[in-house]
């Protein structure tokens, strides 16, 4: 373009089109459209969906961040595209372009806008990090908040390579099937019998580490019925990739029927389980130490069950 190829002195006045205005007019509708799409179309479909509100805070944060970032990204891209099209070298032009001179207005605008954006995001991020509770992640054995009402307690027991679920309010029954009632607060007590796993109930927005000897509490309230994909989210050995199952969120009546039936059906195996506890130590299973001691064995897993323990001093 002539104005770019043949720079004129500032005092000569505006010799060419107002590029800043052009870029702004290109950017404004694109930024508005992008933000509207992000907020009203993309936002409501952010993973992990809306089966519970456990991840609502993260979904909101992502929406806000995306709405803030999209105009910035579009500004950079539109400017770059405009520059490449408008100020490109044409034909056999070989000389350098005009020297870039400082523009106080542009620089101040850029610094001001960047500062406002960054400071706002810092304040917003700090607020979101501290204030909203119940992110769906494990909160350790002593959560700083609890949901209203009496939650259904479901103990998630991870082991290589399977999740099982124990329901202390239903006789301590344990099953390989995760079944939850809709609309009722659920308290997951997550633990492990061996290595570190991670209980990830995707659609519920719950992901909590399953550590041996730790009770990691996470809350959720299923908002509607449907299937829940449960996966291990911590690399845990050969079959980590196969450590998944599918739970169900059902009506309260259906859950009660399932729980009552399962409790009765599992009576025989439930009697052989250790008493319900927040964590389990396999080498403290009743009779196990004595068994290995008498057999003169180190126990399965070498020293894990322990050749260091003694029947009279468990």
């Amino acid at each position: 373009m002539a104005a770019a190829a043949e720079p004129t002195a500032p005092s000569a006045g505006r010799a060419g089109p107002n590029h800043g205005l052009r870029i702004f007019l290109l950017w404004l509708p694109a930024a508005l459209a992008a933000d509207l799409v992000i907020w009203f179309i993309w936002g409501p479909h952010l993973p992990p969906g809306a089966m519970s509100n456990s991840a609502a805070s993260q979904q909101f944060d992502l929406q806000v961040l995306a709405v803030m970032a999209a105009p910035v990204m579009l500004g950079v891209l539109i400017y770059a595209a405009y520059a490449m099209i408008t100020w490109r070298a044409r034909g056999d032009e070989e000389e350098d372009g005009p020297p870039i001179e400082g523009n106080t207005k542009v620089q101040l605008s850029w610094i001001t806008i960047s500062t406002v954006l960054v400071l706002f995001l810092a304040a917003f991020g700090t607020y979101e990090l501290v204030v909203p509770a119940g992110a769906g992640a494990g909160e350790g054995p002593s959560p700083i908040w609890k949901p209203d009402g009496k939650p259904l307690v479901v103990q998630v027991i991870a082991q290589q390579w399977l999740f099982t679920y124990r329901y202390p309010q239903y006789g301590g029954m344990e099953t390989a099937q995760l079944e939850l009632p809709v609309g009722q607060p659920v308290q997951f007590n997550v633990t492990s019998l061996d290595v570190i796993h991670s209980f990830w109930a995707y659609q519920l927005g719950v992901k909590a580490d399953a550590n041996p000897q730790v009770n990691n509490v996470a809350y959720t309230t299923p908002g509607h019925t449907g299937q829940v994909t449960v996966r291990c989210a911590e690399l845990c050995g050969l079959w980590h990739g196969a450590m998944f199952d599918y739970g169900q969120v059902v009506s309260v009546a259906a859950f009660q029927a399932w729980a009552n039936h399962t409790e009765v059906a599992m009576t025989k195996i439930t009697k052989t389980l250790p008493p319900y506890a927040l964590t389990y130590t396999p080498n403290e299973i009743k009779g196990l130490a004595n068994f290995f001691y008498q057999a003169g064995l180190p126990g399965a897993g070498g020293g894990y069950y322990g050749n260091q323990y003694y029947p009279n001093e468990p």
Partner: protein
Amino acid sequence: MSLPARIATVVVAFLAVVGGVVFVLAHYLLATPPTVDFTAGHVPGQPVSMTFMTDPVNDVSSHPDWVSYFARSPQTGQWVHSTIWQLPAHTRINVTAYEFDTCDPLRNQLMGEVTGTIGDVMTVSGEANGVNGTGISVVNSDTTCGVAHTFSAPELGLNVPLEGVLYTAKNQCTQGPCAMSFTHTTTTFSFITPGPGLYRWQCFIPCGLATVDGNGHAMSTLGFMTGYLDVVA
């Protein structure tokens, strides 16, 4: 050194490195046990018989002290050191399991329950097998030292605790595949295969001795205590 010699040296070195990588990939990382085919000659609608054994030792691998499964090939009648078994879909599989290993406690006693088999039961030779011989549904590994290994395919809901040989038993197997003359238990059960697919199965006794949590070695190696049910149409 002349230029051709230098080039030749670089080429040879490069090929040696590439060859080494290919060898490691092919020989160690991508190698799988052979597939034992239980589908050959299968008549649709008819059940398939499958026989396997669990041994405390094996004499067919570089890890003779690892516990291991063996499957009997329906074609040759020979015991095959493999845990990849091909089965026909939607078919009743009648299983006979010979168990030669001594018992260990289950990490999670829930796996002492028989599930996913027809009737959710199994039968064990020489035992009362429940009320009127209908089958055993639960084995307590803690109090009776009842379980040596399990045959479990979580995706299918299939779990069968295989009762073990007492530590005090005489004539325990010392050479695998174990001869039937060694002390063993015999478990039978049946299950229905699902649609075509690859379904992993594993033992839930932490029997990878001397490894962290007992789930290394044999527990984490195809051909020993874990494998696939390759269900085909």
